[in-house]
């Protein structure tokens, strides 16, 4: 994400540079502008840059160890890369000063499991939510009697705080809860929803989909509402059937809001914490089947700040990288660039072509994107 922000800044600098010879439109306003922007920059520095830098600095320090004679903690000193090795290579320190593979039950042994579970949650929930969200949005977009009621009903899950949602589903997935009662009506055995690995994972996915599909639907609905009726009428006159209308008109025209919605949800699920923490406490299976990266960070915070800093820096980089991929290649146009700020070269070609292709011939959009990507990366 940082790349994009700096991109804007460079763009701004370029824009500021040209009016050298004559007195341009913005000339003479530089100082005033700097003063006006300063408070915002300062605030961002305090609440974003400082914690980030501090966390990175802490991640290179050892967690405090015990002084064997007094039993008191002493500062750990510089750690080099050992905190990162603890997570990425799953190495644990031994009392003698060497390293061993982290034993099961140590948080260090759970990094890749947590990464895998988090990615699994992300892929499954976002896919399901996109499909359901499109469906719900299409329903909400129609004109029919009682539309207000349907819209309100669809949005209710989103309005409930996540902690409450999680408790709610905890009762539903209890051993004698509604889910198991319902299953037994159709003759299926009781499931240990919060105990076994896969049921626990699906419990989290079901609860998350229930909760956030409305969000997806809402963003898609906003996209649907800007498509004018005339386009559909024209399509109808041309004899397009429903499926063709959806594929050739609706989808391309909601591409940008849809990608933004997918980006938001992806980043959200990559950081998911409260729902699985309350529902399963990260448990299930052999003990950590639903431990996501954020749960791992929080568990580690209690056991040692500096190792937790390293882990959260790793998580931050992973999430930032995913966000970058989305914005750079996925067409999630979150950072609205003013037209003049576009850099010349490959990227502009890619953007323009993607957009043109997107509206005119969606089926070709994907290959076009792919070639443009290579061009963009090369230039």
């Amino acid at each position, binding site marked *: 994400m940082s790349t994009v922000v700096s991109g804007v800044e460079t763009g701004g600098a370029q824009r500021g540079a040209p009016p050298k010879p004559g007195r341009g439109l913005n000339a003479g306003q530089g100082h005033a502008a700097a003063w006006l922007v300063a408070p915002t920059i300062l605030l961002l520095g305090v*609440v974003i840059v400082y*914690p980030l830098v*501090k*966390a990175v600095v*802490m991640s290179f*320090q*050892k*967690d*405090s160890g*015990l*002084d064997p004679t007094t*039993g*008191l*903690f*002493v*500062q*750990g000193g510089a750690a080099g890369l050992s905190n990162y090795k603890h997570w990425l290579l799953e190495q*644990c*320190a*031994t*009392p003698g000063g060497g390293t*061993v593979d*982290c*034993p*099961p*039950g*140590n*948080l*260090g042994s759970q990094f890749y499991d947590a990464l895998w579970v988090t990615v699994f949650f992300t892929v499954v929930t976002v896919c399901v939510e996109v499909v359901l969200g499109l469906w719900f949005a299409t329903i909400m977009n129609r004109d029919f009697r009682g539309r207000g009621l349907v819209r309100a009903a669809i949005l209710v899950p989103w309005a409930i705080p996540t*902690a409450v949602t*999680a408790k709610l589903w905890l009762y539903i997935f*209890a*051993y004698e809860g509604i889910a198991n009662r319902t299953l037994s009506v159709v003759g299926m055995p*009781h499931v*240990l929803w919060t*105990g076994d690995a896969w049921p626990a994972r699906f419990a989290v996915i079901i609860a998350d989909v229930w909760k956030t599909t409305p969000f997806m639907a809402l963003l898609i609905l906003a996209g649907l509402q800007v498509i004018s009726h005339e386009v559909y009428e024209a399509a109808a006159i041309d004899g397009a059937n429903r499926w063709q209308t959806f594929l050739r008109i609706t989808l391309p025209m909601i591409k940008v809001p849809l990608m933004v919605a997918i980006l938001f949800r992806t980043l959200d699920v990559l*950081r998911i*914490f*409260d729902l699985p*923490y*309350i529902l399963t*406490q990260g*448990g299930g*299976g*052999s*003990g950590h089947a639903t431990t996501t990266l954020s749960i791992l*960070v*929080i*568990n580690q*915070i*209690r*056991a*040692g*700040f*500096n190792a*937790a*800093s390293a882990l*959260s*820096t790793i998580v*931050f980089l992973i999430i930032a990288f995913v966000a970058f991929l989305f914005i750079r290649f996925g067409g999630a146009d979150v950072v609205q660039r003013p037209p003049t700020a576009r850099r010349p070269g490959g990227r502009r070609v890619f953007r323009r072509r993607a957009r043109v292709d997107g509206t005119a011939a969606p089926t070709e959009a994907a290959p076009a994107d792919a070639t443009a990507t290579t061009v963009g990366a090369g230039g």
Partner: protein
Amino acid sequence: MALQRLRRGLVPAGLGAAVLTALTACGGGGGGGGGGQSSVGASARGPITYVTGKDNTGIQSQLVAMWNAAHPNEKVTLKEQSDQADQQHDDIVQHMQAKDASYDVVTVDVIWTAEFAAKGWLVPLKDQFALDTSKLLAPTVSAATYHGTLYAAPFASDGGLLFYRSDLVPTPPKTLDEMWADCAIAKKNNMGCYTGQFFKYEGLTVNASEAINTMGGKVVDDKGKSAVDSPQARKGLQMLADHYQNGDIPKEAITYTEEPSRSAFEAGKLLFLRNWTYVYNLAKTDGSSVVKDKFKVAPLPGVSGPGASSLGGHSGAVSVYSTHKATAFDFVKFLEGDAQQKFIMDKGSLAPVVAATYNDPALVAKYPYLPTLLTSIQNAVPRPVTPFYPAVTKAIQDNSYAAIKGDKSVDQAVKDMNAAITAASAG
């Protein structure tokens, strides 16, 4: 009771989003002993603040009022924290890292004492602050002792009890063998036999440690080093795993925290339940309880006599950053006074730490489980007293959970537990 409930595996909800920011806000590094701070204001008197978890039963404010009436020049202000144990812990950590002088007396859960003491935040209770512990129950004192020094004054305790269906089991089992033999009665009545709390959370550490300690094993030794790799510890975990496999412990028990296990017992689905004292009053009075007059309590069964319960409870500790330490220490002693101990039992259902309170005839008439509770606490073993408690409890939970479910052999689980506890304290 209220405090006891707090320590359940409750949830710091909403911590998730700003992980990085929260991390830094929680403070950097920690560590560094506060040795020099202990003497500041050591004999100074004046108003102080008493920090404790949410006062659901109102007893803390009444205790403070009692003190204030007698000490007009050394008034105590009550500061209530959240009602969730994790948040109380983090709140104290943040204020101590900020060297906050307004946290004079803090309420410390038994499992936090070592961590706070090792950070150098608690005034050692020796020399000028020496505490008379002769009247106190021994396990409560050892739970508050770290590295040979007492760091906190226990004021409320708790122990596990065996709730049993007295209509079906006329004489309660004294030993584990007797209890498992009684499971035939459960089978005949088509109900579950025994459960504790086997969900993967702090309660599992409590239950797994009880099994290990009862068989004569140990989780850590006196120095805080792992001592779990022993035949006794294997026997304890094997017992839980075997009886989970053969159905004596119902399979839903691995989803049970305190409350679901209480509900199951109150619904008449269990013959035996291991739980804390708070269940007694609720099971007697709950509208939904079908066992109101059909249950009694007994000490947890052991090998040949009472088993080794894990110890719950809270202590009062004086902060090294307090500027009125003499008053703070007097207040901590006041909480252990006979009158106050009777009061917290009578009005708050908190288990006293003064042995004599358990023999008070008026209290025993009102709370018939008191003598049983006394036996339980007298035989209790504190959970590992180690400054690395969060990592140690995780090592116990993950591996005993896998062993009970049968995902891992007991032998492997004990080996892994041993390695993980060792790794936890290697720093």
